[in-house]
């Protein structure tokens, strides 16, 4: 036996190693295959172009006066779509590649792996949506208050709730393969959630995105800093984020458990 036993020098991986591995993989895919990200930005811009020039054509000055609100809303929508579809599509791809099982079969447990994947998707989405935001500001000539810390925290917490929906959709897609594509349509429903504050509905605050959207408007349009918000408003933002993320994970767990019972986990 010329080689030493394999486990001689091995050390257990920590959550740090896990986070590094998952985020590094996302980074590699992002820099090596930029076409996806660039394509997303271009499509986002074209869509925004239609909205902006079409709106100006139809509503004239009234539209131009509210352009900051539109830019913020569109920024949040692109973040939401990015977070939602990337995680639900990612789960679908992992099923197809046979890598989902390997992430379920990890000594870390699937939850931290999935959460880190979610974080990786959010970081990636922030980068692409940041570029989109910059171009939108240039095109519209509008100005916003861009206090990075405040914007990242508020927008980040807002889209965590959507990430939860993405997990739920991904889980349902594991169980019912064909439904996955239809669930992608849900992202258009985010428009309604993001504009919900405009209707001033009390209970709407409990929906994903709605309350976060209102806070993000205040932060980016009115320049309210994170510490200037009412604590209860921030607590609600965190509560909604954690609540929907937890709910999404519960749905994902239930769906994958049923898939394991039916023997369809990993079937494609």
């Amino acid at each position, binding site marked *: *036996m010329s*080689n030493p*036993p*394999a*486990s001689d*020098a*091995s*050390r*257990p*991986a*920590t959550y740090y*190693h*896990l986070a*590094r*591995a998952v985020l590094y*993989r996302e980074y*590699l*895919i992002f820099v*090596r*295959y930029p076409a996806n990200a660039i394509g997303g930005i271009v499509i986002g811009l074209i869509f925004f172009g239609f909205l902006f020039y079409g709106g100006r054509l139809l509503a004239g000055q009234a539209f131009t006066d509210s352009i900051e609100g539109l830019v913020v809303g569109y920024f949040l929508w692109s973040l939401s779509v990015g977070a939602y579809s990337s995680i639900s599509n990612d789960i679908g791809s992992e099923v197809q*590649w*046979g*890598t989902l*099982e*390997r*992430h*379920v*079969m*990890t*000594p*870390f*447990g699937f939850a931290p*792996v999935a959460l880190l994947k979610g974080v990786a998707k959010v970081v990636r989405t922030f980068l692409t949506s940041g570029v989109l935001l910059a171009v939108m500001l240039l095109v519209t000539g509008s100005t916003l208050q861009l206090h990075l810390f405040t914007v990242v925290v508020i927008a980040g917490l807002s889209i965590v709730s959507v990430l939860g929906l993405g997990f739920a959709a991904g889980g349902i897609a594991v169980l019912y393969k064909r439904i996955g594509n239809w669930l992608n349509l849900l992202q258009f429903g985010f428009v309604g959630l993001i504009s919900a504050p405009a209707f001033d509905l009390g209970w709407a605050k409990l929906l994903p995105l709605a309350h976060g959207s209102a806070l993000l408007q205040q932060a980016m349009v009115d320049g309210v800093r994170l510490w200037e918000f009412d604590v209860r408003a921030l607590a609600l933002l965190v509560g909604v984020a954690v609540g929907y993320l937890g709910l999404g994970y519960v749905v994902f767990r239930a769906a994958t*458990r049923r898939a*394991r*019972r*039916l*023997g369809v*986990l*990993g079937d494609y």
Partner: protein
Amino acid sequence: MTGRNRGLTATGDGDAGDGSVQSSAAGVDDPSVDPTDDAGERDAVEGRTATARSGVAIAVDGLSKRFGDGPDAVTAVDDVSFEIRSGSIVGLLGPNGAGKTTLVKSILGMILPDAGTVEIDGIDVRKRPRAAYSRVDAMLEGARNDYWRLTVRENLRYFATIGGIDPDSVAERHERLLEQLELAEYADTAVRDLSRGMKQKVSLASVLAGDASVVFLDEPTLGLDVESTRTLEREIRRLAEERGLTVVLSSHNMDVIEAVCDRVLILSDGRLVADDTVDALRRQRGAQSLAVTSRDLTADVRADLEDRFAVTTVSHSGESTSIEIEVDGAELYDAMALLRDRDVRIDRLSTVEPDLEDVFVDLTGRQESER
């Protein structure tokens, strides 16, 4: 073949009821078990059972899985029990739909069984999946099992981490693995740019990249050419010996099973119908035969042969006669001596060995016809 024991105990269909564990492994000497260490205390802390200490890597007891309800229900795995000792390579055979994949996925917890327990290194997979998953990895049939957009080395590092091992601590092992699987030259190539055979090897490498002591390989040579299949067979054996790996290898390719496995489990209709070494299964099918073709095999000679040996086949073609005689050990010399004494000039001579495929067809075919 040092370092590998041939011990596998089974409580298949026939004796599953008593739940006992029979040690059929004569001469098994497991170097991993040190009676003087504090294994008891450590195992108690880790929640491992007695099977871990007895050198059993996989213990499956009464595993059953049905899909569907009522008359349409299909029993994919039917009360299967067996144990596999650490360091052995066990083949899992069965016709399509026999329940191989369901059995493997049920062992891994990817399918939830209706009944039965599974222990990996003495850890109950159902009760303590995370602890069990630090010991096991799998290459499942028809799946990529890795990321094609990452390079070979990146895959190894990623899946080592997912398997619970700091990739920096096993970097040297990864290099060795790449060398052994002839992938070193492609270490920094994206997997998508490799040939099918190479991709298959990367998939295997990624399964071995962590610290798993038990690996399941479902059709690892599927779609590979002869040369790649042989390389993979050789490397699976070598890696198993070097690392003391326990391998469960499922394949339709009997040659792969014969070349690689110490023992074979044969499934048919969800039931375990055979569990033995390849040699023992072959012997069970019948002895080695001698096939002789000659124009001198007259009725008298044939009668003499039939008196002393078990003649299994006689056929005539023109003036020639072909005969198959079962010969066991020294009988070969006796048969040849008889032919010489009777002045039989041999036109063609060969030995016929029963192969695993014959055993497989016998067992699974019989099982089908009994139902």
